């Protein structure tokens, strides 16, 4: 069972082919790692999937629906969530508001229903509030609900961004370097969290430079270099591959 299929996905910036005819099938469930040197096209690939960049050519299917060419919000509503490398929480809003915003298709986000179907909006918001509290607790940020997001440490902001993803109910989570800039103790709880999420049946694809992390939690690994997939397989096998070692680890 494949949750997402990329076919010949290509994107160039000027003369540089950042992503070059990439064809990958991601299986449903589990944790897949994307590794590769800086500039290998990993983040560009994420941006193409979430609709922030347009493809030059190729196709992307999610749940058998073609998603390339859709807007970011249409793609999000289909069930693809995204964690940015620099987390991008809404800094001036409270922790709770950040998570409340995650709900997709909230009736209260149309001013017409705010004015004319008040009860539906109130009920949806009540439910949303319960959910949000649950996820804030789940990632371990209880007690910080009303603090502005900018008052959190970088690691905590990452947890908040993950709570936001969970509250969105996405089937597929794209995590861009979840362990970067996070202290070792928190990396551990972050990995626990990712495993818990995967066990709950959601699919995770993550970009990572920390090989210990990759070896510990990834079920599958794709190695990218210069916009192309060089190697694919179980983490041990990929990291043992000669070409990968030469291109990435310099050994």
């Amino acid at each position: 069972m494949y949750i997402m299929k990329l076919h010949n996905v290509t994107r160039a910036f000027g003369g540089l082919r950042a992503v070059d005819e990439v064809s990958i099938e991601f299986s449903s469930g589990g944790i897949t790692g994307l590794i590769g040197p800086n500039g290998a096209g990993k983040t560009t690939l994420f941006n193409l999937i979430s609709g922030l960049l347009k493809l030059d050519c190729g196709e992307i299917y999610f749940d058998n629906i073609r998603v390339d060419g859709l807007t970011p919000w249409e793609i999000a509503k289909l069930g693809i969530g995204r964690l940015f490398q620099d987390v991008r929480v809404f800094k001036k809003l409270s922790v709770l508001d950040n998570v409340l915003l995650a709900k997709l298709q909230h009736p209260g986000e149309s001013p017409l229903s705010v004015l004319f179907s008040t009860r539906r909006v109130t009920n949806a918001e009540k439910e949303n509030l319960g959910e949000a509290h649950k996820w804030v607790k789940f990632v371990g940020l209880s007690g910080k609900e009303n603090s502005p997001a900018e008052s959190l440490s970088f690691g905590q902001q990452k947890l908040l961004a993950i709570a936001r993803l969970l509250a969105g109910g996405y089937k597929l989570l794209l995590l861009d370097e979840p362990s970067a800039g996070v202290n070792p103790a928190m990396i551990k709880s972050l990995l626990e969290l990712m495993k818990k999420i995967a066990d709950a049946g959601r699919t995770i694809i993550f970009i990572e430079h920390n090989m210990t992390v990759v070896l510990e939690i990834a079920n599958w690994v794709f190695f990218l270099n210069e916009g192309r997939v060089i190697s694919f397989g179980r983490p041990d096998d990929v990291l043992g591959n000669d070409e990968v070692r030469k291109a990435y680890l310099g050994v």
Partner: protein
Amino acid sequence: MIFIYGILALSMNLLAGYTGLLSLCQAAFYGIGAYSTTLLMIKVGINFFPALVCGIFITSFISLFIAYPSLRLRGDYFILAAIGFQLIVFSILYNCVWLTRGPYGIPGIPRPSAFGFQFDSLPRYFLLGGFIFFLVLLFTRAILRSPFGRALKAIREDELTAGVMGKNVPALKIWAFVIGAGIASVSGALYAGYVTYIDPTSFTLDESIFIIAIVLVGGSGNLKGPIVGTFFMLILPEALRFLGLPVTIAPNVRQMIYGLLLILLMRYRPQGIAGEYRFE
């Protein structure tokens, strides 16, 4: 006048303070509201209140034509489009003499009345203005405290992330813009009924800038800010009259004190007197 500008400030706050849209054409909607209400009263002969409601719909509808194409553009282009729209509306009001009497303006606008009660004296009009201002305040409060208002704030903070989180960014901005236009038209109607004479010079780009200044001075992102800003910008110039300065230099000194206060405010309190959000 306080209430008229108060309503304008509320509409601007919805756009600038919550959505992050620096709209430089609020005076155009203020003018469209004033003209459409007036023309409905004079040419069609309906009462002030239904004319006001029709004016809201007309203004909101017109605002869609500018919102739809321009809000799909990014930041700076939107500001340029808004200035362009402001200038176009002014020239239409100025040159469509058959409809608006152009530079001659429209005199003799009837005062509002309801159930035989005339809002013709100043205190009575003050009450009417206060009442309508209060209604608008309740309306904006309901809108901004709803999940819709929260989504607008998210757009102000980070448009890209809001999009990736499933918020239809252009649609939400268009909504905010259209609602803001509708609110501005309410103060246009109140203005027409208050001074009983309107001409295009009341609805210029300068006026739009003044509305933004109110919100920037008072502070944006909450509901206190625009109210404080309105008091500051409208009452302070009047209050400075009572300083007892010699008549010959008084007007100039007043302007200087006023300018100095604005500079001090920008230096020491860039988010405005009561604002929670700083414009960048």
